[in-house]
C-alpha cells in the first residue's frame, strides 16, 4: 500500500506509475511524493524495482531496450511524460548519479564538470567559476584544482564518483537522483559521499536508491520500502520518516525486511 509522507505541493511526485521492460511489469501502480530539499531513500531487496522507479523519474528508463512507462511523474505539477515535454529539458532539471562512476573518458576533469553546464559563448572565467563551484560542492576542488586538464581516469573510484556528482550539480538541476552511488566504493569514500549528500540536500531534492539500510538510516529524511509481489512486480510497501520507519514500521513486511528476516 502506498502512503504519502509529505504534504501536497512537492516538487516531484509519481502518480499510479507502472514501468515495463517489454511485457514484464517491473514497477506496479506506484504513487509517491518526494519531499522537497530532503533526501528520500528507496530501499528494498534486489529486483524490487527501486532502480527502475528512479530511472523513470528522469525518463532514462525509456532509453533502455523495451522500456516503457504508464502513469504520471509530476515535476512542479507537470507530467514529464506528456507528449509536449522535452526529455532533455527534464534531464537538465533532474540530474542523475549512477551506481558506478561514469566520467567521460575522453574529456578532462574540467570538461567533464562543464559537460552540460553554462551556455554557449560563455567566457572562460565564467565557466571556470561554475566548475569551481560544482567541484567545491562535491568536496573535490582541493584534490583536483591543480590537475583540471588531466584525464578523470587518473582519479580514484571515490573521486570519480564525486566528479560525476559535480558534473550533475554543475548543470544546476532541481532534483538529484542517486542510484546506489556508493555501491562500488570503499567505506572511506562512502563516508565522504554520504556527508556530501547531507550537504547537497540543502539545495537539492535528492532521491537515493540504496541496498544499505544503515546508509538509508544515516543519510535520509524519508524512506520508502519497496518489495516485489509474487509476479515480480515492484510495489511500494511503506513510506515514512526514516526515524519512524526504522523504529516503528507500520507494515509487518517492512519490519521483517529491516530486521533481516528476508532480503
Amino acid at each position, binding site marked *: 500500500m502506498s502512503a504519502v509522507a509529505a504534504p501536497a505541493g512537492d516538487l516531484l511526485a509519481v502518480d499510479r506509475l507502472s514501468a515495463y521492460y517489454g511485457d514484464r511489469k517491473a514497477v506496479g501502480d506506484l504513487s509517491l511524493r518526494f519531499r522537497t530539499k530532503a533526501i528520500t531513500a528507496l530501499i528494498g531487496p534486489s529486483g524490487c524495482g527501486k532502480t527502475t522507479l528512479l530511472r523513470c523519474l*528522469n525518463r*532514462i528508463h525509456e*532509453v533502455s*531496450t523495451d522500456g516503457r512507462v504508464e502513469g504520471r511523474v509530476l515535476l512542479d505539477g507537470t507530467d514529464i511524460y506528456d507528449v509536449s515535454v522535452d526529455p*532533455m*529539458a*527534464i*534531464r*537538465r532539471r533532474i*540530474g*542523475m548519479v*549512477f551506481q*558506478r562512476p*561514469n*566520467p*567521460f*573518458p*575522453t*574529456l578532462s576533469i574540467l570538461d567533464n564538470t562543464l*559537460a*552540460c553546464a553554462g551556455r554557449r559563448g560563455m567566457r572562460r572565467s565564467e565557466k571556470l567559476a561554475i566548475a569551481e563551484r560544482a567541484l567545491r560542492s562535491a568536496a573535490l576542488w582541493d584534490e583536483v584544482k591543480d590537475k583540471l586538464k588531466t584525464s578523470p*581516469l587518473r582519479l580514484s573510484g571515490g573521486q570519480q564518483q564525486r566528479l*560525476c556528482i559535480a*558534473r*550533475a550539480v554543475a*548543470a544546476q538541476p532541481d532534483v538529484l537522483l542517486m542510484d546506489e552511488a556508493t555501491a562500488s566504493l570503499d567505506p572511506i569514500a562512502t563516508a565522504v559521499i554520504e556527508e556530501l549528500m547531507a550537504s547537497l540536500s540543502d539545495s537539492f531534492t535528492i532521491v537515493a536508491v540504496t541496498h544499505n539500510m544503515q546508509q538509508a538510516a544515516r543519510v535520509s529524511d524519508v524512506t520508502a520500502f519497496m518489495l516485489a509481489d509474487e509476479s515480480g512486480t515492484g510495489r511500494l510497501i511503506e513510506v515514512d520518516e526514516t526515524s519512524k520507519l526504522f523504529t516503528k514500521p507500520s507494515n509487518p513486511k517492512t519490519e521483517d525486511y529491516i530486521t533481516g528476516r528476508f532480503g
Partner: protein
Amino acid sequence: MAQNGLRYKGLRRRRIASWLGIALAFCCAAIAAASLLVILGYVVVQGVGAINFDFLTQLPHPIGVPGGGVGNGILGTFIILGIATLMAVPIGLLTGIYLSLFGRGVIPEALRFLSDVLSGVPSIAIGLFAYAVLVAPLRHFSGFSASFAFMMLMLPLLVRTSEQAIRSVPQSVREGALALGMSNFRATVGIVLPTARPAIITALLLAIARVIGETAPLLFTAFGTQFWETNPGNPMAVLALQVFNYAISPYATWQAQAWGGSLLLVGAVFVLSLGARLMLRRSMKGLEA
C-alpha cells in the same frame, strides 16, 4: 586416498592423452606460423635487393633501360586510397552509428545482411561493377573509378567494425551523457564517438590494409600508366597493378621490381596491422579504465 575411491582412474593414460593433444596443437600452430614466416621471408629476400631511392621515386623505365622505379605507382596508390577513404569513412561511420543506435528491426538487419554479403563478394566482381557504372558510361579508365571500387571493398568492414566499436562503449557512459540532458546526437557525437575513436581508427587501418594489395578491381578501373598522374579523372598507376604487370612479364629486371613492389605492399600491410593492434590495445585500456 586410493582406499576411499577419490584417486583418479587411468591417470597415466589421461596425462599421455593431454600431452599428445598439447603437442598436436603446438605443431599445428607452428606450421601456421612457419608458413607465414616463410612467405614473408621469401618476399623480403627476393624484394629487398630491388628497393633503393630510385625505385621509390622514379618512373618505370622502358625495357632494356636499367633502373627505374614505381614512384608513380606509390603516388597513385596514395591518391586512390585517400579518395576511397574519404568516401568510405563518412558512409561507413554514419551507417555504423545508425546500426548501433537503431540496431533492431527489419532495416538494420537487412543492412547488416547486405554488408556481410558485400564483404564476401569477390573483388573482381566489385571491379566489374565499378567498370559498369563508371568506366563504361564515361568511356575512360580513371583513378576515381578505382577509388570507388576500393570504397565498396572497405565499406562492409567499416560498417560492422564501427558499429561494434560504438557498441563497445559502456552503456553507462552513454546514459551518463543522456542523463545530463544531452540530445541523442550530441551524446553520440560528443561523448560516445570520441570514446570509440581508437577502435574506429583500428577498423579504418584494417580496411586500408584489406584493399591496399587488391589488384583485380584495378584491372577494370585505374588501368595504369607509365607516367606521373595526379588527376584521378585519368588512368593512374597503382603499385599493386604494377606488381601484377611486372610479375607476368618475361623480363628478369621487371620481375625483380615486382618482388620489390610486393615487399613494399607487405611492409605497408605489416605497418597498418601493427598500428591497428596498438590502437586496439589503447582502446581496450581506455574502456577497461
